[in-house]
């Protein structure tokens, strides 16, 4: 849902709307090899390295109401709308060029090395709850890192980055390998997610009752 629909007329939401529109255009361009190549040549990774807002991942996942149903999305929702287009853009560029332009993988690795604290905080995933937005962020981030790791040649930025990520990635495997370990902690962030979770709980409860009847 476009954020301006949630809070029209606010300067902050205007900026978020522009960000989403801009990234949508860049993502469209990045979905072709020529576009991805031109974006890299235009200094995309260098510019992203300067973007301070990427680091501002909020830790209000526990403080925020579990379901956002008023006009103001939580800071984590706003951050999600900012960071997901950025991650998808990087993912698209890396996917387009990872076989033909290996130096792009090195540039991507350099970006993540420059953003080491942010990337590790995402990968360590120490938030007490699990939400669909954080899972979506992890899905795209780990997908990018898997491709960047292919550029690991034993030295250089890609190697440095993969060495830093490895323990955190293994931690994610242990955390999310078995759904029963994390599904109980999955917290809805929208009314639709809450309804789906309630429906799933009802089905599970029905199954339990049926088993008892047998």
């Amino acid at each position: 849902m476009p954020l301006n629909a949630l809070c029209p007329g606010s300067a902050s939401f205007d900026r978020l709307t522009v960000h989403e529109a801009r990234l949508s255009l860049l993502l469209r361009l990045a979905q072709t090899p020529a576009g991805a190549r031109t974006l890299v040549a235009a200094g995309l990774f260098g510019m992203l390295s300067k973007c301070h807002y990427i680091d501002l991942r909020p830790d209000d996942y526990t403080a925020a109401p579990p379901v956002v149903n008023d006009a103001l999305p939580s800071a984590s929702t706003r951050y999600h709308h900012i960071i997901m287009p950025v991650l998808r853009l990087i993912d698209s560029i890396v996917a387009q060029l990872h076989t033909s332009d290996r130096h792009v993988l090195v540039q991507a690795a350099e970006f993540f090395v420059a953003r080491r604290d942010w990337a590790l905080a995402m990968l360590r995933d120490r938030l007490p709850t699990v939400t669909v937005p954080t899972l979506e962020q992890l899905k795209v981030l780990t997908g990018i890192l898997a491709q960047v790791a292919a550029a690991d040649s034993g030295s250089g930025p890609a190697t440095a980055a993969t060495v830093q990520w490895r323990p955190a990635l293994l931690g994610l495997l242990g955390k999310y390998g078995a759904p029963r370990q994390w599904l109980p902690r999955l917290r809805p962030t929208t009314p639709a997610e809450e309804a789906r979770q309630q429906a799933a709980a009802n089905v599970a409860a029905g199954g339990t009752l049926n088993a008892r009847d047998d």
Partner: protein
Amino acid sequence: MCRDALDSPAIASVAYALLDALVVQSSRAQSPAMLDLLLQPARLSAIVATLNDADLAAALRPDART
């Protein structure tokens, strides 16, 4: 695209959406003219430069509504 226009949120978001639609249309029509126009390095660099938007950090503040 005029760089000044990108500084105005209202104009910029409409301009980006319009360019996005033109790229889609150009792709569907198998006419790469619009893509070629956008992919000129100077134009793309101007758009990439706007990524470093300091106001976005303000949008993440708890009181971002006002």
